[in-house]
């Protein structure tokens, strides 16, 4: 009996243990953050939503990827500067103008630094801006449609790298030039670089209602390389800071010749002063050709306009416009803390981080505490603006973001780590390795007055052994850290699209309310749209044939077309009649030398098809739309040029 009792007691204890684990497994995480494992922190249950969006630049893919955080799930790749056959971006007639530049149609670029629009120093979730590095352009992407709505080319620029960062009310999105060039461009000897090549820093005004961008003015600067930039905020609102290297003005073997000077500069631009100079007419109007491309949701089409001039302010001739702050060893990152007081310069070849004080900078300007000048621009004394130095935190510092609790996080490329340090005391608080060679890092809202300091994402250039091998080319990656505690905690690795140069993050609730579900047919102003099957038709205009076609689950109207001839140029103008969420249809036509169309509900898109051979050629829906998707198909009859077959079209014999 005693034996039995003992066993019942043990059994009860074990059962109670089972009960706790059984009932707790479905619990909603009330066990306390401290007890959670990394897996629990990134687990978003099937059907549940992530708490944050991350917009991660695609680097040499030219696009912008949308991820959920903390899961690291990829939702969408938004085509921006490169053609995308999946979404017909740059392939259909409606979006070709978006990729038009002063150099003609360009199918690719290198996208770098996404930045989300702000109101009163906080992320407002309306638009994300991103720069094309190679053929200088800035794009604006709507966070209602998650589509690129505008691309403007930047004249007098080359290597559009210190871009596209916004001021605290999105007054401006700013684009700097990494490479200096002859301005205006002309045929001259490369050896005459020094003193003759110049740089232009562009300030693009953003319309607060439509988001439309226009180059308000450019500031003409000495021929250095302008690497990165960030806006002043709070007390330093009205200023913009650019890091520079190659103040040596070398034009060959820069890895040696641009690393000679002990200090380069952070250029402080007083853009409110620039506005005054523009108002006073102190600018020069330069002729410059650059395209301004706008996609309208009402017409579902883009237009490209060639602009012809730009207003230029010469920094060498306009006092009070620009000051130079000496900063050791080719600074890369140029980051401003949430209060606007500290400007962090990461000298890539320096072992220490240099932090400037905005308050001290203003005092030094007032006291004329100068250490000479460069091309007429005052150089402030190094000690006069220095707030402090983070001593030897790591090797190869690149970028810094802030958590809003007085801490800064800096990436170190060479020593592959993120270092957390304290603003004001400059002491190192924590360090965590990254895998490997981290470039940028991102804290949601990190470039604003109000960061959301829960997560930090480090973006790595090299992944080597971190994933299953995929041949010589392997992915680059992002690593998610929890930064809510004293120490950073690595939660998750996830691969990225192209090279993740930078990212912008935002709490999901700031976006999901306004996310568009479909386009209203009544608002469709596409010149070739038809809003009912009764209006569908085929119209011949010489060798051009326009098919006004509709699609709805699960047929095209018309789906039988005859009277097309070899040598015709056939335009499929296709309207998706659906008015419901998540019902796109696609169109593929045999032999079409272009991509599919992928048409959202209420939208119209156009494919051009030039049949070369007589025959009866099928077309079909490419996006699995319904149970009868496989039945969504049609035929188009192509006759010889001299044929007498009349143009006709039908659906179900009607």
């Amino acid at each position: 009996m005693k034996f039995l009792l003992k066993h019942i007691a043990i059994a009860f204890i074990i059962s109670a243990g089972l009960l706790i684990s059984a009932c707790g497994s479905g619990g909603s995480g009330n066990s306390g953050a401290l007890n959670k494992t990394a897996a629990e922190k990134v687990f978003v249950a099937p059907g549940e939503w992530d708490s944050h969006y991350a917009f991660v630049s695609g680097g040499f893919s030219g696009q912008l990827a949308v991820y959920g955080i903390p899961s690291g799930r990829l939702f969408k790749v938004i085509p921006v500067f490169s053609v995308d056959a999946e979404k017909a971006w740059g392939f259909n007639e409606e979006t070709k103008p978006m990729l038009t530049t002063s150099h003609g149609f360009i199918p690719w670029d290198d996208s770098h630094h996404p930045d989300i629009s702000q109101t009163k120093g906080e992320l407002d979730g309306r638009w994300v801006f991103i720069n094309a590095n190679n053929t200088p352009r800035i794009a604006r992407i709507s966070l209602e449609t998650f589509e690129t709505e505008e691309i403007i080319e930047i004249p007098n620029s080359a290597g559009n790298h210190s871009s596209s960062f916004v001021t605290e009310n999105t007054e401006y999105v700013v684009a700097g030039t990494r490479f200096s060039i002859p301005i205006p461009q002309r045929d001259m000897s490369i050896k005459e670089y020094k003193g003759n090549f110049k740089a232009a820093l562009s300030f693009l005004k953003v319309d607060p209602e439509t988001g439309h961008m226009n180059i308000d003015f450019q500031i003409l600067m000495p021929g250095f390389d302008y690497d990165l930039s960030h806006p002043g905020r709070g007390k330093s609102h009205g200023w913009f800071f650019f890091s520079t290297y190659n103040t040596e003005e070398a034009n060959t073997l820069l890895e040696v010749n641009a690393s000679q000077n002990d200090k380069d500069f952070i250029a402080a631009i007083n853009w409110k002063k620039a506005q005054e100079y523009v108002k006073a007419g102190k600018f020069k109007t330069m002729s410059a050709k650059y395209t301004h491309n706008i996609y309208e949701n009402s017409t579902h089409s883009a237009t490209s306009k060639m602009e012809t001039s730009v207003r230029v302010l010469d920094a060498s001739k306009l006092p009070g416009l620009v000051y130079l702050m000496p900063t050791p060893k080719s600074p890369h990152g140029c980051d401003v803390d949430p209060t606007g007081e500290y400007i962090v310069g990461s000298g890539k070849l320096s072992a220490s981080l240099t932090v400037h004080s905005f308050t001290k900078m203003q005092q030094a300007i007032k006291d004329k505490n100068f250490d000479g000048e460069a091309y007429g621009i005052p150089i402030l004394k190094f000690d006069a603006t220095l707030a402090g130095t983070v001593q030897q935190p790591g090797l190869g510092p690149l970028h810094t973001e802030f958590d809003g609790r007085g801490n800064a996080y800096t990436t170190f490329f060479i020593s592959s780590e993120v270092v957390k340090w304290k603003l004001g005391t400059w002491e190192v608080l924590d360090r965590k390795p990254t895998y490997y060679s981290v470039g940028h890092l991102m804290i949601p809202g990190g470039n604003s007055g109000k960061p959301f300091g829960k997560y930090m994402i480090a973006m790595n250039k090299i992944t080597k052994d971190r994933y299953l091998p995929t041949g010589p080319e392997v992915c680059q990656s992002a690593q998610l850290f929890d930064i809510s505690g004293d120490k950073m905690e690595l939660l998750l690795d996830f691969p990225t699209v192209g090279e993740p140069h930078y990212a912008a993050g935002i709490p999901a609730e700031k976006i999901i309310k306004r996310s568009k579900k479909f386009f209203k047919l009544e608002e469709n102003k596409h010149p070739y749209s038809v809003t009912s099957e009764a209006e569908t038709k085929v119209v011949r205009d010489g060798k051009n044939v326009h098919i006004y076609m509709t699609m709805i689950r699960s047929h095209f109207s018309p789906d039988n077309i005859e009277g097309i001839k070899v040598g015709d140029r056939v335009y499929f103008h296709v309207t998706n009649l659906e008015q419901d969420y998540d019902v796109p249809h696609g169109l593929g036509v045999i032999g079409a030398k272009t991509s599919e169309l992928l048409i959202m509900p209420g939208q119209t898109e156009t494919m051009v098809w030039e049949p070369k051979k007589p025959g009866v050629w099928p077309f079909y829906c490419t996006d699995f739309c319904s149970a009868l998707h496989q039945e969504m198909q049609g035929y188009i009859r192509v006759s010889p040029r001299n044929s007498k077959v009349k143009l006709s079209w039908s659906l179900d014999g009607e």
Partner: protein
Amino acid sequence: MKQFIYGTLLLSVFLFIACGSDDSAKKGAKAGGNNSGLTDFQLKNGIGPITAKLTLGEIDVAKVKKGADLFVQKCSPCHKLDKRLVGPALRYVSFRRTPEYILNMILNPTGMVKDHPEARKVLGEYLSPMTDMHLTPDQAKEILEYIRSVGKEGKENNIPEVPLFRSSAK
């Protein structure tokens, strides 16, 4: 040892049931007088924004005109009056269904197809779920007036299906 294992199992099962019972109670609460969990009104008149019987007067000619245009725009890609197409022919529908059911089907097709046994049955036959055209209640009423105006009593089954092969002579 055996006693020990049985004892553990028994207690575990007992405790497990105790903690799991909450969930099953929730599911039971929805069941009403029929298996679908719908009220009698919903069974006859559909699920959606129309939740009470409407009083319909004489057919409103002005509404019929608007309804006819809307029918061409929004319905005809899938519905004809006298021919089975993607969805059922609609000449006879106002005699088969209540006006409230028709309105709910137009205004809430996704919910109807998901939760209403009749709508599910029709989906089983036609396979394409009815699409939500996001019409306003007024627009739906105009379409209803049009359908009433062209309505006839009869059976939809009498409408011949489109033959699989058509001879060129017809």
